[in-house]
């Protein structure tokens, strides 16, 4: 039997170590201020503990998954159970936790090396990263809409500080934009939740789900879910509400962009998947797939067209993130096991690819290279960083043998399978457009002569996390079964819920 502690241990470890990080590292610094090796040990300890606890949860879950695929855990058991905070452990949430762990570990490592005060590590920065990671993980396991909301907002609040870390005027403006959007979004969500609670009397996923099928008058429900979905759409940056994302990711330090795009973005798609597919699956409750398909086509197209027009490479990658949201929505729309599978694969791959692109761009930004023209001829001057960026953009454009291809293939096939061939056609046309402007970037990097001499060398230590991600991208591209073996049962499980 999986208890509440087992579900929450990873988050508790991360959040507590986030809170303790600042005093402890300050303490450590007094005794060991030469290499910061003690600080590194302190940082790696929580990761080790989280890995162990997630693995423990994973084994425990799979030992009994046959009998009970959806494990419901309550904070308060007994008569008030339907009112208490609850958590849901299934194959999907376990998979997501592992994804966060892997990608989070690598991008934290990059962040720690990237953000330094003088020659020392910045303790506040990774305290924030731990905070985000911890709350996102708790959101993943949450079993009712309110718990989900609370943890999700906690992560959004910490993300703000990651964005504003440099305190430059642009980043403050971007952060303000983000905050305003988040606050509006949470207003929407809370309003929607209150209606749902009024209709159903509980916010547990499964209770809501069961109640919905028996509900006769669905008008109020339509409004409620429009509010919830709208709120999460703002936080996910689905197109008409996407404006905050490119600003935020461009103004934030690259390590923050990498971390946020890898963790928070993917988590927000996951929430979409959870709310729409798990709770709202039977399309006869509400015909949401078509509306979502329209939004996804819009998101892909707008994201790619704006990316095409950018001259700042980091901003271009930010718009690629917007386009990625569109691809993810395509998969959610299909409500087929294949689509869910593509989606889960996309979470992992998309997170890794955006993270590695932002990391590589971050290294180049540090050398003073920002615009496309600045990138001229860096292929020969900075070969390792350029190669990593090339692999990331080829993976974005969906070219085998990189993992992005497999993700896109599954997503588009799912769209065809869901009888939305038009969406697949829009998707692949977008993919082609994406390939065009991304290969143009490669073109700049390799064909042109450098415009000015580039001072400085490639930082070896920063390349380690980048290449860890690149290796994963290639490995998953050539042999996707590495994760598919885990995704397949998870997708079947969610697919079973479909009518």
């Amino acid at each position, binding site marked *: 039997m999986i208890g509440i502690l087992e579900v929450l241990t990873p988050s508790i470890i991360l959040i507590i170590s986030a809170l303790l990080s600042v005093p402890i590292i300050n303490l450590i610094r007094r005794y060991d201020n030469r290499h910061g090796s003690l600080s590194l040990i302190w940082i790696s300890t929580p990761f080790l503990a989280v890995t162990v606890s997630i693995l423990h949860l994973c084994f425990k879950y799979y030992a009994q998954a046959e009998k009970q695929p959806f494990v419901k855990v309550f904070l308060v058991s007994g008569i008030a159970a339907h009112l208490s905070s609850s958590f849901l452990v299934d194959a999907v949430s376990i998979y997501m936790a592992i994804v966060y762990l892997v990608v989070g570990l690598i991008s934290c490592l990059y962040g720690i090396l990237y953000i330094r005060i003088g020659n020392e590590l910045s303790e506040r920065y990774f305290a924030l990263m731990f905070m985000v990671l911890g709350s996102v993980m708790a959101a993943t396991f949450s079993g009712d809409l309110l718990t989900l909301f609370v943890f999700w907002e906690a992560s959004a609040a910490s993300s703000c500080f990651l964005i504003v870390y440099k305190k430059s005027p642009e980043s403050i403006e971007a952060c303000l934009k983000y905050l305003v959007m988040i606050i509006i979004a949470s207003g929407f969500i809370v309003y929607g939740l209150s209606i749902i609670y009024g209709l159903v009397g509980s916010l547990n996923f499964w209770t809501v789900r069961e109640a919905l099928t028996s509900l006769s008058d669905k008008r109020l429900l339509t409004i409620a879910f429009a509010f919830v979905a709208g709120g999460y759409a703002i936080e996910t940056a689905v197109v008409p509400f996407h404006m905050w994302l490119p600003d935020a990711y461009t103004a934030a330090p690259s390590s923050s962009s990498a971390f946020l795009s890898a963790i928070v973005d993917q988590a927000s798609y996951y929430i979409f998947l959870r709310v729409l597919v798990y709770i709202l699956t039977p399309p006869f409750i509400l015909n949401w797939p078509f509306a979502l398909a329209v939004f996804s086509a819009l998101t892909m197209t707008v994201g790619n067209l704006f990316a095409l027009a950018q001259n700042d490479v980091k901003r271009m990658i930010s718009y690629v993130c917007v386009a990625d949201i569109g691809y993810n929505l395509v998969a959610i729309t299909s409500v087929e096991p294949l689509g869910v*599978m593509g989606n889960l694969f996309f979470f992992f791959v998309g997170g890794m690819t955006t993270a590695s692109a932002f990391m590589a761009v971050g290294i180049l930004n540090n050398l003073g290279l920002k615009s496309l023209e600045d990138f001229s001829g860096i292929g020969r001057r900075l070969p390792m960083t350029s190669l990593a960026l090339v692999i990331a953009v*080829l993976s974005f*454009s969906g*070219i*085998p*043998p990189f993992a992005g*291809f497999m993700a896109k*293939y*599954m997503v*588009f*096939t799912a769209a*065809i*399978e869901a009888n939305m*061939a038009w969406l*697949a*056609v829009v998707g*692949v*046309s977008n*993919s*082609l457009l994406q*390939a*065009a402007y991304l*290969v*143009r970037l*490669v*073109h700049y990097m*390799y*064909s042109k002569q450098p415009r000015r001499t580039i001072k400085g060398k490639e930082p070896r230590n920063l390349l380690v996390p980048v290449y860890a991600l690149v290796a994963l991208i290639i490995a998953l591209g050539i*042999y*996707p*079964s590495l994760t*598919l*073996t885990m*995704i*397949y049962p998870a997708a079947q499980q969610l697919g079973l819920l479909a009518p």
Partner: protein
Amino acid sequence: MIASLLLALLLPALSAPAAYVLGRKSAKTAANVVLLFSVLDLFFLLTTIPDVLSGGRYTESYYWMPMLGSPLTLFVDGISLSMAAITLLLIISSILFSVDYMEDRKSLREYYALMGLLTVGLVGVFLTSNLMVFYFCWEFMLIPTYFIIGGWGYRESYRAAFKFFIFTHAGAVAVLLGIGAVYMLTGDLDMFQAKNLLAAAPQDILIWIFAAFTLGFAVKMAIVPLHMWLPDAHAEAPAPMSALLSGVIIEAGAYAILRVSLGTVFPSIASIPVSNQFLYALSIFGVISAFYGAFTALAENDIKRIVAYSSISHMGYALFGLSLFPFAEGMIGTVLHLVNHAASKGLLFLNAGAIMKQTEVRDINQMGGLASKMPLTAVSTAVSSFSVAGIPAFACFMSEFLIFMGGFQAGGTDNFYYTTTALMIVATVFSLAYVLRLFWKVFLETSKIEKVEKVPVSMSISMVILSVTVIILGVWPGPIIELISAAVFS
């Protein structure tokens, strides 16, 4: 032999890092490593001949991703074996050619490593019956080709490479849609399984699938309205890469139309009338390409562009041959033409590269009288260009003859094919014209170039290898026709 196809697929992938690491001291070592791996690769491929001759088809299957209907299925039959073998022969010659041809260039170990990677895609396309593996290899050609054309090409090479990349990727995207649809309809991605399963699928979707596949493959084949990438890419690439582009990459398009569009999807829609119009369209675009390529080749003065346009013309022949589906002569002729054209055109591009390197001009009006100064090149150019022109006793004659035979046979059931076959025969005259013009201007006219250095050894060897191949294919095509026809009839 056990796992020989898996080895044939993976050896080149290993050759890339090996060449990169071992080639640190000298580029020659890198070249030798890639060469050794390619020869080994050819050896492993040829070990399957007994199985193919006795069983018709040799298959291996490995665990890859069964969740998406894709085991790693490798197979060869007569068609793919002959295509893969000529591909490897061409790769070996190209690498051998590169040793002296590229000697004054920089960062050669990257070049050879990329050549090794390219081999994976080029050979893999012919070795698999799984559409997903096929697509992997199909797209895997893009990246190394892009960097080889761009990094070691001539004028504005990255521009040409960019054009190549975008055009062929656009084609591939259409193919991807087709693959997704096939998976949706059948739940299986094996070409032979899908062929049977598609028979039950709704025909109005199948028409779209057929169109998507054919369009996508036709881009790579450079059929006329979709050919814009070819002249630039072929002309600006380094000579060994041009040889591979013309000898393998565009032929892979023809092979894919035969195997996937016609072999897998077409049987299920053959019963409806619109399918005939598809074949007519192939036939007409074949004729247009053949004429367009030949005319433009006649008008060009740049030696490599002439050869490039001649490739467009020849892909027209191949497409015309494909439109004769399912007449056996036409199919055998087409596959044989692909093999012959690979050898001849590859050789012709290598010759053009040798001429350009030794004389340092590319305009044929400024050449002339090279026959006495570069006798070996003159002979091998004669062999390759006569073959391209379709003169008897050289390779392409036999295959063109078979295609026209097939055309007349098809004309027997459908008068339309009499017209197109007759037009194709007219097109051969123009082929002869541009070949003779090329040969006359470069080798025979009064000499305009004073001093020409001797062609280095490795370049000579690779030209000799391919010349001998072209002559053997022309004089004694029996065995290979036997190999191909066994596959066609099954």
